[in-house]
């Protein structure tokens, strides 16, 4: 009746997995509350100026030049290579305005003999920063709610809660790793988090789809066994897709350049965590909530051939 290439008892490890997930989430939350996220100017407001010099430059003279003009708290660092410099201005109530970057560029230009190349200027006003934070948070929240509703409608509310539990798990842990490593968290990383939601969801739905199918097909097994069989049947697909996705995400990470480094990093973490969560977190949650065969039977009228024994 049921064919599986492999027959691994995934669910035997569900308790250790739960503890493992719980620990990771707890650690992530602690880090998020203590170390916080290293949020960029997209959310805090402020300015970033990236300039290219013709040859490698020392940072100290630049820092001094800025300090002399009252920009003592500017963060100056190399970016990508020794001839490229990134200047970050912490948000400042009195000086926050778009003209600030012009001033700095003029200053750098004056301090250097050769022409410097302005590669990037980002300025985000405090008001806009607040809005981006709010909109970003809302986007994630609304995405989760929309998914919750759709899955509840297509499957069953326990699955729906299971998939959202997996999503929350993935988002919290990805954010947690960003917090522990103090990686830059900007708008592109937020986009990556949202992509992770989409990806992890995709994975979870595939597993749930099989669980539903098997519940309707297999009568003489416990819920736990049915879930185990379903995971076994989908595991090769889960790993294959994760692997190909990782291939491209890794190529983004190594070849995509500095600008999408953080973005690619978030995706790598997200794909790994998302794969794990769709195997353990989503299904276990649904099991704990007491999913059973009777919840998934089709209404009599629909003569789906797969529903027949």
């Amino acid at each position, binding site marked *: 009746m049921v064919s599986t290439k492999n027959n691994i008892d995934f669910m035997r490890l569900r308790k250790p997995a739960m503890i493992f997930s719980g620990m990771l989430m707890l650690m992530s939350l602690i880090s998020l509350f203590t170390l916080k996220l290293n949020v960029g100017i997209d959310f805090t407001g402020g300015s970033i100026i990236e300039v290219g010099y013709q040859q490698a430059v020392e940072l100290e003279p630049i820092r001094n030049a800025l300090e002399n003009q009252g920009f003592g708290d500017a963060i100056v660092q190399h970016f990508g290579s020794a001839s490229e410099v990134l200047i970050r201005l912490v948000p400042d109530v009195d000086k926050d305005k778009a003209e600030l970057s*012009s001033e700095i560029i003029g200053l750098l230009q004056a301090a250097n003999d050769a022409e410097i*190349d302005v590669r990037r200027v980002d300025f985000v006003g405090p008001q806009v920063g607040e809005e981006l934070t709010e909109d970003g948070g809302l986007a994630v929240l609304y995405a989760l709610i929309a998914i919750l509703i759709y899955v509840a409608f297509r499957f069953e509310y326990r699955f729906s809660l299971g998939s959202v539990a997996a999503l929350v798990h993935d988002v919290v842990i990805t954010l947690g790793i960003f917090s522990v490593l103090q990686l830059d968290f900007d708008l592109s990383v937020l986009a990556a988090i949202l992509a992770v939601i989409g990806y992890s969801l995709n994975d979870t739905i595939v597993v749930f789809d099989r669980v539903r199918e098997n519940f309707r097909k297999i009568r003489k097994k416990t819920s736990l066994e049915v879930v185990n069989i379903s995971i076994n049947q989908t595991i090769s697909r889960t790993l294959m897709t994760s692997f190909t996705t990782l291939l491209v995400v890794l190529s983004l990470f190594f070849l995509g*350049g500095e*600008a999408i480094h953080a973005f690619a990093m978030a995706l790598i973490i997200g794909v790994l965590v998302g794969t794990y969560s769709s195997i353990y977190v989503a299904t276990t949650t649904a099991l704990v909530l007491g999913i059973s065969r009777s919840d998934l039977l089709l209404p009599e009228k629909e003569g789906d051939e797969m529903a027949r024994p």
Partner: protein
Amino acid sequence: MVNRYAPWRYILLILIITIGVIYATPNLYGEDPALQITHRVNLVDQGELNNIKSILESEGIDYQSIELEGNNVLVRFASEDAQLKAATLVREALYSSDRRYVVALNLAPATPEWLTSLNALPMYLGLDLRGGVHFLMEVDMESAIEKSLNRAAGELRSFMREEKIRYKAVQSSNQKIGIRFTSAETRDAARLLLEDEYRDYEFVESNDDRSWFIDISYNATALEEERRSAIEQNISTLKNRVNELGVAEPVIQRQGDERVVVQLPGVQDTVRAKEILGATATLEFRLVHGSFAEWSAAQASGKAPIGSRLYMQSDGSPVLLKRSVIVTGDQIVGAASGIDTQSGSPDVSITMNAKGADRMAKITRDNIGKPMAVVFIEDKFEFVEVDGERQRVRTTETEVINVATIRDQLSKRFHITGLDSTREARDLALLLRAGALRAPMVIVEERTVGPSLGQENIDRGFLSVVVGFVLVLLFMAVYYKLFGLVANIALTLNLVLMVAILSIFQATLTLPGIAGIVLTVGMAVDANVLIFERIREEIRLGNTPQAAIYAGYGKAFGTIADANITTFIAAIVLFGFGTGPIQGFAVTLMIGIVSSMFTAIFGTRAVINLIYGRKQVTRLAI
């Protein structure tokens, strides 16, 4: 259970592939450095084309082509050097006859004609890829309303004078106009008349021991209308200014109630762009009041005599000017900077509109021998902290740049001196030509990407797409053999279709958009993996190859649909609530989901059916 597709399905598939390939092709051609010449008022025609042609030919500058394209002349060059040289020449030649020409540097897609005739254009690259400036500007609505109430107050005064209503004072402040009367009767009579005449206002009465007031403010509809017209007028001024800067393909768009997005592709001098866009500089012409002794006295006491106001000159000395304005910057229609032949200092020659010229003529005729002042007005912003909240505070800087004796009657054309530098003269002329902003604007967000970084982003994005893509192709071929190769055809087609759809809709491709494409490549495999794994499973269950293919596709479809629809919902939400980069990502994700479902299910099935259908098959290469 036959693995055969009806001929119409193949026709449909071929049709879609053909359309996809045609509309993706323009992206293979590069871009030519070009000049785009337009006129701010008139349409350019063959005459201008010939004129430009002869300018270029007389200077021996080689160009690739010159043609009339819509309402502009487009000249293509082989190198950027030639483009820049030509830009300087053409500008000089055209500006000397008419300042209203706009000569903009541009990168014109080198798409062959047969493709452009099909409306096939390359993808529209975002500023992070082509380089340029993105500004989000906010209109200061409060001061827009204030200004318009100020004007209204003047109108009310003259209305009441005409109607012989005896009022004590009219003052506008705090978004309303207050009129003071000395008796309740006059107030009530005035209200009746005013209410009848001005339907856009709301009237509130109040009184104290000796005075009776009417507070007048805009009603909700009028307020809405004022805000709408303030932002619209600002947008049209911004458009004029951007034209003055000579930017090809600028985007100036309203966003929400108070904001305007300005995107200037390819602008190099962002510092100047910023100054020009946000500048509120304008001029006023006023008659001088009193004598030097009175000016000093006014400065010492801080009180100006009735009908006058105290101003500062550029050297810091005081001067009293009459309250009533002769003409304002709004009435200036033309302005050009130059050098004053007598003093050798920078000057701006000014052309007034008819109304302004009349008034100027009348007042200067009556005041020959008296001094007149030119006042330079500019709004500036500062952030201050009030009760822990950041607030933007506007300060208006006014400076008398020139006081000169009226020697003759002035009219339509005249010129002013007293500017510090040629640069200041040039910028002032530009701002006067482009018109004043109705209300001050402040830049609340800026994203500038230099051209070198833009190119780097394109190169790197392209490389990572290619490498990621090739790795996936190799892996699929090894792991799923013949089926893997079929999936690879579908994947390639998916990429072509995505590029074609992005090109057709001219959706903006950004760096996160490229990341979205890369991610879609990774995830597009998923549908095929699901199908192929299912087919393998069916074979293990002992089904025949044909049955396995049939069941594999059939059973996997539901799963694929569910998984993709949920992701699509997430993408829609992202698009709806996200901004800039998130939206770019969401768009490519949505397009990717649709085209990958099409290619992975319909596309591969068509090929598999072609290979295995109608045949006795004993083994599948999967």
